[in-house]
């Protein structure tokens, strides 16, 4: 009896040590992931959606008749995408990416004024006016005015399975991104596009 119980205790201790030291779960691991093929861990907005939505909207704008029919380069200002969601979505990341793709896809036919750095720009111009040499000083009052304003809204709608006897809950999330381009002279919405997607995720109600 004594020998058996000793063997059980020793076996359990050795087994435990082996699990803790040998199992990959307990080892540090770092690996790069393909950003174009990232998995979703829940139903809410993710980096994959940021990439997909901005790509689709930028393509839609860059290939639109509105841009094609512009006689000259179109100067735009981005006034942000309103996050009408329950999750704290960084919509500035979306507009940053949108701007970047639009500049590339349109071969600079669409240009942007740097509205987020206006303060710094004015500060630097003021500094140069006082301290820089005549040859290198940037001229004041020569900034280009935007002709159009890009705005939008990201809408989220959520649904969950109702109360019932179950061991998991299913969540459905719908997202809709609307992007509008407004003519700053006339105030008319010159062009607009929408992209949407929905995703479901099932989460266990009981876990370890």
């Amino acid at each position, binding site marked *: *009896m*004594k020998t058996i*119980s*000793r063997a*059980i*205790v020793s076996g359990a201790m050795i087994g435990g040590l082996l699990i803790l030291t040998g199992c990959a779960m307990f080892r540090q691991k770092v690996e790069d992931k393909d950003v174009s093929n990232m998995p979703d861990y829940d139903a809410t907005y993710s980096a994959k959606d940021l990439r997909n939505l901005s790509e689709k909207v930028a393509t839609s704008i860059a290939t639109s008749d509105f841009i094609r029919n512009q006689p000259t380069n179109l100067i735009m200002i981005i006034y942000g995408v*309103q*996050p*009408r*969601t*329950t*999750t*704290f979505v960084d*919509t500035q990341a979306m507009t940053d990416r949108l701007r970047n793709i639009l500049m590339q896809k349109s071969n600079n036919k669409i240009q942007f004024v740097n509205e987020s750095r206006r303060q710094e720009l004015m500060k630097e111009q003021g500094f140069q006016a006082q301290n820089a040499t005549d040859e290198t000083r940037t001229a004041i009052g020569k900034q280009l005015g935007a002709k159009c304003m890009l705005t939008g809204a990201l809408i989220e709608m*959520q649904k969950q399975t109702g109360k019932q006897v179950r061991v998991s*809950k299913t969540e459905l999330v719908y997202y809709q991104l609307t992007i509008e381009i407004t003519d700053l002279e006339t105030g008319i919405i010159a062009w607009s596009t929408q992209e949407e997607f929905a995703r479901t995720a099932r*989460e*266990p*109600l*009981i*876990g*370890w």
Partner: protein
Amino acid sequence: MHQAFPGMPPFLRYGTLLAVGLTGLLAGCSTPPLQTARANFYAGRFEQANTNLAAIPKGNKDEVLFLMERGMIRQNLGQYEASALDWRRAGELDAKLDTYSISQGASSLIVNDRTLSFRGMPFERTLMYAFLAKDYLADSNWDYAAICARNIIKKLEALDGFPDIAYGRYMAGFCLELINDEGNAAIQYRAAARVLKDNILIDALSGDILPKTNAISAVTPIAKAALKTEPAELVCFISFGRMPAGEIYGDFYSQFPPYAEIYCEDEYLGRSYPFANTAALMAASQRRLAAIQMAKDAARIATKVAISEAVKQQNNALGALTLLALFAMEAPDTRCWETLPLWLEVARVPCPANLKSYTVVFKSASGAPLGKKVITAPLSRRGNTFISFCRDVGP
């Protein structure tokens, strides 16, 4: 060698030793000094309170509670961004706690409910978003304040027998009003008015708050308010006191609401009105959970008796000791967000268009002055609306 329990099989003896060792190890794990932080907070030593909770252990069963408390401390320190990060993290953790943990559930059956991860009552989780909204209002981040509003509404639309919160409704309505979502704001203002049955009228279109002296006299000021003749208005969220911890009986804490008078350069602008009392919300939540708690307590006691009886069959002395140890671990789960104020009030008053500061005079229900604060920050502005908040930490 003398053995304490001669009839006990060796593997059980080693197992017991291992269990005792592990318990000691876990009990000895360092946790932030929460009570000290709370004491410092209520003594007005916000910096020290923040230092007390500087390191919050990840994965701790009370992580949500620590984050809730630290968020409040940081908001009172004016560290709105850090406070918002704490509350957002608490919200994320809370969402993960929707999954019932078998291991924690089993340990709560043997020890007590304090072994379960802290989530707080539904009203605490809702109010967390109301306070988070204030962080964003202070930073003039209207879009994120509106996200908080949607979270408040989401929680208040799934009450499941828990109490509705007029303060949460009003905050949600106001945040939506600030992003020009006036239709949804009006729905929330109406819902707040429904919850506040007693003394206050809320105009669903303008969000104006008026005393309900009688139905006829209230019509005129509402009509006046709708005209929006005031040059500007100040919306101030004012809170008083400390939410009591533990079981709440009767309505001692929810009687005699204090109020605040608002002045600008000695001119009286108006006063605040009570929108929620956290003691009343806690009492209502405890009543809602009473039956579930009773069943859980009964199951736990039965489990403890069964375990000690099983041990007793092996060894009489150890069985008695086990029974004693298991019942010594019995303790009610009184954990709650203790830096929450007792009274949550709102003042919406006309003010000068160039408002730079204002004075709040805190008064007891009988009108006796309790204290005074000159507020210069937070004081953000959206069009003709000034937004601010302050707290009387009080004794």
